[in-house]
């Protein structure tokens, strides 16, 4: 598939501080890519560099086959929506949406038709004469989207577009924005720190940390097969077990031995086992499965449709969190003090080398 945007070695330094370390990324035509990461990870800087609002220290940006590395924003082809929407308060909705069109010497009738078309597209066909402050946050967001799309850009940039909204509105707009993007087929980059938003909306997620890309992949891939401890930790909940590799895919956490498909660690190496609360079997004939854990429930976080139970397994050291759906909770009689047996879903469990902890391990042996 033809790529819409290609970043090669994008590097950004503010004095001594390196905001982006040589970012390489190719974005395909028509896909929605999320830049996801904690605040300060460089995702917004990267977006602003793509928009030309910030200048990279080095690196190349190719858009639709054209090198735009040093082009000013106005010479690039994109529309942008900011977290604050940046709607012009003294102009009506119509005037806001027409802002980029008026500059192109189009006939008034043509502009008006285009504005109506866009307002219909975002579901606000009758609000054109109002001012931004007379609309709700969600409506303002849609106007900003219409304005960004007015000039039919081939690239849409969304900078935390939903984070200023209430939870309910945010959820509804996720679907609307995604639907609109699919229908228009416009290549879209969205910056967000909200993992749920990234997981539910993107074709691919670019997980970033400290100015570097940790992993690029589909939502399923980054959630189920995180390639780095950071990704595993940042997306979703995770239990981290310290363990020692015994070789041949066997590991010992505390006094519990586990057999996992993950291999590649020499015997004696210290590792961390990343285990999500849902990476377990709780129903059926558990006794027949390998990698069983038995423990007592020492705490329950009730979260509505499901709960997180704290399971203290003797020999494992600290307790781990296991999730149960509301139904399972009742069916399996999950309550404080109950004795529970589970089996790990080893196909999901990830194992990473415990680099940071290695010196301590050595010291404790000595």
């Amino acid at each position: 598939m033809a790529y819409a945007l290609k970043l090669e070695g994008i590097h950004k330094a503010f004095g001594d501080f390196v905001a982006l370390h040589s970012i390489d990324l190719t974005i395909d035509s028509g896909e929605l890519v999320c830049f996801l990461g904690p605040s300060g990870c460089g995702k917004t800087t990267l977006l602003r560099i793509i928009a030309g609002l910030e200048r990279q220290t080095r690196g190349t940006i190719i858009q639709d086959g054209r090198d735009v590395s040093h082009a000013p924003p106005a010479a690039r082809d994109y529309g942008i929506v900011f977290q604050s929407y940046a709607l012009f308060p003294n102009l009506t909705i119509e005037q806001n949406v027409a802002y980029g069109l008026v500059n192109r010497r189009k006939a008034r009738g043509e502009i008006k038709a285009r504005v109506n078309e866009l307002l219909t597209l975002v579901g606000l066909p009758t609000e054109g004469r109002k001012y931004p402050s007379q609309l709700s946050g969600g409506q303002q967001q849609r106007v900003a989207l219409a304005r960004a799309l007015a000039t039919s850009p081939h690239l849409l940039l969304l900078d935390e577009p939903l984070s200023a909204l209430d939870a309910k509105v945010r959820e509804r707009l996720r679907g609307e924005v995604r639907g609109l993007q699919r229908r228009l087929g416009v290549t879209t980059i969205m910056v967000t720190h909200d993992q749920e938003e990234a997981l539910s909306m993107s074709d691919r997620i670019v997980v970033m940390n400290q100015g570097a890309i940790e992993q690029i992949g589909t939502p399923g891939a980054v959630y189920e097969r995180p390639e780095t401890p950071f990704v595993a930790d940042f997306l979703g909940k995770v239990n981290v077990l310290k363990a020692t590799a015994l070789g041949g895919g066997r590991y010992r956490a505390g006094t519990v031995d586990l057999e996992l498909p993950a291999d590649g660690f020499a015997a004696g190496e210290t590792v961390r086992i990343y285990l999500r609360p849902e990476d377990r079997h709780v129903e059926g004939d558990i006794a027949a499965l390998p990698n069983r854990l038995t423990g007592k429930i020492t705490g329950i976080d009730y979260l509505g449709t499901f709960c997180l139970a704290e399971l203290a397994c003797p020999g494992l050291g600290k307790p781990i969190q296991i999730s149960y759906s509301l139904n399972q909770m009742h069916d399996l009689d999950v309550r404080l003090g109950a004795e529970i047996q589970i089996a790990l879903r080893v196909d999901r469990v990830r194992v990473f080398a415990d680099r940071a902890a290695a010196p301590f391990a050595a010291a404790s042996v000595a």
Partner: protein
Amino acid sequence: MSAAAHVKAASFKVAPSKLALAGEALVARGGLVLLATTLLVFLAVPLVMILIRSAEDRDGAWVGLANFVAYLNSPSVGNSLTNTLQFALMTTLVTVPLAFVFAFAIQRSRIPYKGLWRNVAMIPILAPSLLAAISFIYLFGNQGWLKFVIEWFGIKTIYGMPGMVLAMTFSSFPHALMILLAALALSDARLYEVAEALGTSERRKFMTITLPGAKYGLVSACMVVFTMAVSEFGIPKIIGGNTQVLAVDIYKQVIGQQNFQIGAVVSLLLLLPAVVAYGIDHLVQRRAQALLTARSVPYQPRRARLRDGLLLAFVVLVSAALLLVVGMAAYGSLVKVWPYNLSLTLNHYTYGFKEAGLEHAYWNSLSLGVWCALLGSAITFTGAYWLEKTRRDQTEGLNFLRPAIRFQAMLPMAIPGMVLGIGYILFFNHPANPLNFLYGTMTVLVLSTVMHFYSSSHLTAVTALKQIDGEFESVSASLKVPFYKTFWRVTVPVCLPSILDIFRYYFVNAMTTISCVVFLYSPKTTPASVSILQLDEAGAIGSAAAMATLIVVTAAVVTGVIFTLEWWLVRRTQAWRNTAQS
């Protein structure tokens, strides 16, 4: 349908011409260079000239610190220094407590008609400082109507320190009051609620919550009043009698004896306390930031009969005194021969001005005020926009100008007007300066006045700009609309109330100022404020009062008109203003 819409609209795509893009960057760069050059030529260089000339003799030869030694060894200098400091200190000690109680009454009590008292207290801003001096001569002078009052206090004559302090208190009162009103406006009701829950007495609440909360405002007010007094020239000139102060020394050296070198030396001495005060204030304000959080709940004073009664009496008394001062000048200007013939006349306004050859002075000031307001608000607001909102990558290579501009924009705050005036003489009157032709023209009066009052206006503009969304320029760049179009179409309309504020500030100050322009006017361009000085020197105190009254009335009318305009504007645009508060 929607996908089709996207395709159909492809006809809207127009590649923006290279020329237009180059134009946008050029406008950004050009604006920055223009602003930096203006500030350099009309502010920084004149000030540097003072430094240079202070180390030269009359023929321009380098003499190092000889001028300083000469001046400091002159017999009168000790007096000038002590008098100046005493004058400034006493004024501060009188003004700040008065202003604090006044501000406290308005922000922390339930007295009625707060808006009225507040407006009355601002009246001195509309008046040249000379008006107060003239009024006090009418009131307490040798033929004063209330002379017996000062005699109760054992003061023999109003000329000298007593008159100076009284007049300066009048002039500086609103400046201190504004700072203290702001300081006392910020308060967290929950602190008082906690104190109450713990059974704290009123007195202790005041000492442990109110006073510490206003601490930074108090320091700021002290510094402002002190600096104003140190650099005040008109008041000591008119009511100072034989009391010499530094500001008058400069005037005598430069205008009287054409001794620019010593003038430069005294300027630098005058700059010293002003810069120290400014520095202290700056240091203290930097620590003041984190006192209140966004979650603070504003304090609502409760009714307390005794407190409110006493505060109301105080506020009424102060307001009456302020009105008396202005009223006395106005009355004096209408009386034939004070205090012998009290029949009313307009002679001081007509023959009086003509006799002194000053019939143009009022019109000069009006024109000075209008030009300063127009040019000042345009330069200040546009400059602040170019400084804060143009993209750094568009002005690559010129970004070093930004901190330089910021520094220069704040510089006038610490520079007394007289010092700036001397700098202008030294620079523009220099025979080798190609801008020499400006000397003695209205243009130089306008430019110097704009520079003199640049800092406050700049701060107003920057504050207004920071309140609007920071991404307007980014959005317009993405829509391929040059930033200067968005400036005109969005930023200016949104900030119009602030721009009008800046306009009003320049106008009023241009009408009333004297310290800077007193060195720069020519017989043709004499402003009204300076003419008061000349009329007083000529013994025409009635006409001096008349001129001062004209200035107050004009400043008041223009202020009223602009407030009405702002009110109308905000009302007319309220469809999109303020409704978005969430």
